[in-house]
């Protein structure tokens, strides 16, 4: 598959690679991953994320429906604000992570991962089927509308807001992290959500299909540089964010993944009724046997699949799920899951990580590795 920007990428000499069924840009021209990565941390970059699945979930009972599918407290969200959330299976495992933006209690804009497209759509459709069956007489019909062919670009970095402000009359300082709004960019109305996947201030901009290329051209003028998947991965890992299929999967619960905060405060009582609640609430109460952690590994980068070992006995106590030499920190950073027995998930705990047959020293670190710099408004 191709996003609406495929020809645009080729025109500006992107190196395209297969990703989640799409042909996506990895790097552009001669610019390497490290330079691209640093440019986003220091200036501003634009990412095509049009492979991700954008949908509307609508209907009179849409909010209650989504509070069945997720552990989020959507009723406490004000309109045009969003939250990270998760779809859980019956066992409390994560089907996908998602950003849910509430437009009203009857309309939610939902962005999910390209790699989970089929699983998500099938899951949501089947749950809508059940829901509508049960709510037929109470007028609570829910619908899923997938926004195929809509553009989605992320503009990220400390200069993102000042650049975007040159293209819109909307007063961007009003739009704090997690908020969204419809605004004209040039003369095209777009859905703009403040946030992203880099830890930097930025925006995710949803563009109608017929305007995707022209609006992206407008959004990618100097000083904005186009950034590919390579730097997207290193930026998100420094920001401590999970990549589905690597750091999250269906056998992992949000409690194990360190995502307790996606479970709404008012969703933690026994009758809260979201799918997977039994396992997840039990884990909140009784703890889990493994947890996601950050690691800094001495000397060598540890990659996905590297074993985490007990520092003395060298027994397996966990596994690395993502790891890179960090371009911003010049340290080898990683995320993984480690046993909670003996507190191996605690900050500062020393462990070993097996790389090329040798145990290497590593220390458990809090996430994120690079502090986030979201726009939360001016302090009064």
């Amino acid at each position, binding site marked *: 598959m191709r996003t609406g920007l495929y020809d645009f990428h080729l025109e500006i000499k992107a190196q395209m690679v297969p990703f989640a069924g799409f042909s996506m840009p990895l790097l552009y021209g001669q610019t*390497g*991953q490290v*330079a691209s990565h640093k440019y986003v941390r220091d200036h501003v970059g634009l990412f095509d994320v049009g492979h991700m699945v954008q949908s509307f979930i609508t209907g009179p009972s849409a909010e209650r429906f989504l509070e069945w599918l997720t552990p989020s407290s959507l009723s406490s969200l004000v309109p045009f604000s969003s939250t990270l959330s998760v779809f859980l299976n019956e066992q409390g495992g994560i089907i996908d992570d998602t950003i849910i933006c509430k437009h009203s209690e009857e309309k939610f804009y939902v962005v999910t991962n390209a790699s989970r497209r089929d699983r998500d759509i099938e899951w949501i459709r089947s749950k809508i089927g059940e829901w509508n069956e049960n709510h037929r007489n109470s007028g609570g019909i829910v619908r899923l509308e997938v926004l195929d062919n809509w553009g989605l670009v992320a503009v990220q970095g400390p200069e993102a807001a000042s650049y975007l402000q040159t293209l819109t009359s909307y007063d961007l300082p009003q739009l704090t992290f997690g908020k969204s709004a419809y605004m004209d960019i040039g003369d095209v109305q777009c859905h703009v959500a403040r946030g992203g996947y880099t830890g930097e201030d930025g925006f995710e901009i949803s563009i109608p299909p017929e305007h995707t290329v022209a609006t992206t051209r407008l959004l990618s003028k100097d000083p904005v540089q186009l950034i590919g998947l*390579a730097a997207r991965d290193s930026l998100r890992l420094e920001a401590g964010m999970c990549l589905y299929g690597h750091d999250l999967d269906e056998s992992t619960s949000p409690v194990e993944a360190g995502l307790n905060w996606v479970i709404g405060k008012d969703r933690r009582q026994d009758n809260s009724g979201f799918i997977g609640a039994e396992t997840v609430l039990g884990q909140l109460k009784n703890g889990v046997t493994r947890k996601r952690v950050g690691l800094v590994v001495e000397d*060598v*980068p540890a*990659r996905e699949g590297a074993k985490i070992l007990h520092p003395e006995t060298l027994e397996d106590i966990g596994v690395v799920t993502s790891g*890179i*030499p960090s371009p911003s920190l010049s340290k080898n950073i990683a995320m993984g899951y480690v046993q909670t027995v003996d507190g191996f998930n605690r900050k500062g705990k020393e462990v070993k990580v097996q790389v090329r047959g040798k145990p290497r020293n590593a220390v458990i670190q809090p996430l994120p590795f690079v502090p986030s710099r979201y726009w939360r408004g001016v302090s009064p």
Partner: protein
Amino acid sequence: MASSRFYSHNPKKYTLDHEWVSLDSETLLATISITHYAQSSLGDVVFVELPKVGDEVKAGEQIGAVESVKAASDIYAPISGVIEEVNSALDQQPSLLNKFPEGDGWLCKIRAANPDEMEILMTPEAYKEHCET
């Protein structure tokens, strides 16, 4: 620079893993590194793990790794012998591997135990074909 002249007298042989070897037939020192093709598919090299001087290695054995942000690429000994020298300049400047993969970005020198092992490696022509297929 003397070393680049030195290389040119010793035609390179190549491995399927995108490494090159240049054997000095008098000293039996084999200089090895990764090819231009390898560095370009790996991207910015940020870390190199080298074997230790004095290590005895067998042809095909993993002796280190070259890493970019996105991936790690293992290095295998193309021939058997003893590690005689490692390029410590790579500790400070791993990017030498991107800039001069077939010169200053050499990885290590192996004192060849069995120079005949060079025979089964690819010629420059065969390697070129290998990259194109």
